């Protein structure tokens, strides 16, 4: 059973210096209400894991503008000038991770694995300092899991057991982040009774979800 809490309560689960996964791809599928609650709460020195920092003061970008993030594991910041400025001024430290490898490392953490060998970024800065494996003439690098204290994710609908239904391309990093963190909070538009969501339609099983927040509450 997922516990239904307010956005304000959810924000208190994130402590100063916490690692935090934020789902979404250019705002689609991002936990925008929970991000608003974090901005209001003001908790800072966060380490954030996310696909992109969205736009200036929008989506994940709100926490960039409010300077609550000290470090990032991210694949793209090109759509947010404030992130680029903070990175250039060394106000924020960044590990750039190829997008597919980022979500796979998160999934790996959630799936109880110790890492995986990947061909992505061989011969680039991504491979620096990583163990390698040669198999049939091809070189792979060892990628380690990425976990976090808390994941804030979002979905269209949930039942009270935490089963989630996603909408179109807003699924993106939500299922992997749901399993990758110690505590998972899902923000949803609607919360229904168990049985109202067909088991066939469940995008993330409720076993991965600890808390539900109804958007705006």
């Amino acid at each position: 059973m997922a516990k239904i809490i307010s956005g304000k309560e959810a924000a208190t689960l994130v402590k100063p210096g916490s690692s935090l996964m934020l789902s979404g791809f250019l705002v689609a599928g991002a936990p925008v209400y929970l991000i608003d609650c974090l901005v209001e709460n003001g908790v800072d020195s966060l380490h954030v894991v996310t696909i992109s920092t969205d736009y200036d003061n929008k989506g994940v970008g709100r926490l960039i503008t409010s300077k609550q993030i000290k470090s990032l594991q991210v694949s793209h910041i090109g759509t947010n000038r404030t992130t680029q400025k903070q990175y250039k001024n060394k106000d924020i430290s960044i590990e750039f991770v190829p997008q597919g490898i980022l979500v796979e490392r998160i999934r790996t953490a959630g799936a109880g694995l110790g890492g995986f060998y990947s061909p992505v970024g061989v011969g680039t800065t991504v491979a620096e300092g990583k163990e390698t494996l040669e198999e049939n003439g091809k070189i792979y690098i060892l990628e380690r899991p990425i976990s976090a204290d808390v994941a804030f994710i979002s979905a269209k609908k949930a039942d009270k057991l935490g089963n989630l239904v996603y909408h179109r391309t807003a699924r993106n990093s939500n299922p992997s982040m749901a399993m990758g963190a110690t505590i998972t909070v899902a923000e949803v538009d609607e919360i229904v009774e168990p049985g109202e969501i067909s088991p066939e339609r469940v995008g993330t099983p409720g076993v991965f979800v600890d808390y539900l927040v109804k958007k705006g509450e």
Partner: protein
Amino acid sequence: MDKKQKRERIQKRIAREFKDGDYVNLGIGLPTGVADFIPDEVTIHFQSENGIMGVGPKPPAGEEIPDLINAGGGPITAKDGASFFDSVTSFSIIRGGHIDFTVLGTLQVDARGNVANWSIPGKIVPGMGGAMDLVSGAKQVIIATLHLDKYGKSKIMKECTLPLTGKGVVNLIVTDMAVIKVVEDGLKLIDIAEDTTIEKVVEATEPQLIIPDKVGIFS
């Protein structure tokens, strides 16, 4: 020819590479426009790495859905037979060799098939997004680029000087002047644009080109 016409020429030429039924991922910017030049009788399944196979055209104004976007964040539609999936599945499709072509823009590309398009250290570092996964896993990697940068310098180099996105991964380079294939011993000229000559292409290209007996022409 203005910049828009040059870009359209590149897009049109790349569209000819695909065959009916191919699965294709188009990068942001110049590559996105390739979709506008697919002949009616050819069906291409376009993937966008944020989680859709079967990308359809841009919706009419007022019918945009915030939860239905492409990798550039722009509104799209889903074609009949489209599917949605999460990022882990999306990149399994990409890395696992299930995509026939990826088309990417670039800052630099070189004679060994190296490509650099994610970072200009000290100036601007947008990040690689999905590009490193794409060049690692797609069956064919096509680079779409203007032949010369804004200073008139060749974007095709002997050796990339910027941080690489992929090493030895490029198969084909399509510019407003030429179509160039990356082969074992360097770069082989395939086609030249109708308004240029082999000599001009050679002059505009930093590394040496292998010139076969037969070179095609594209418009």
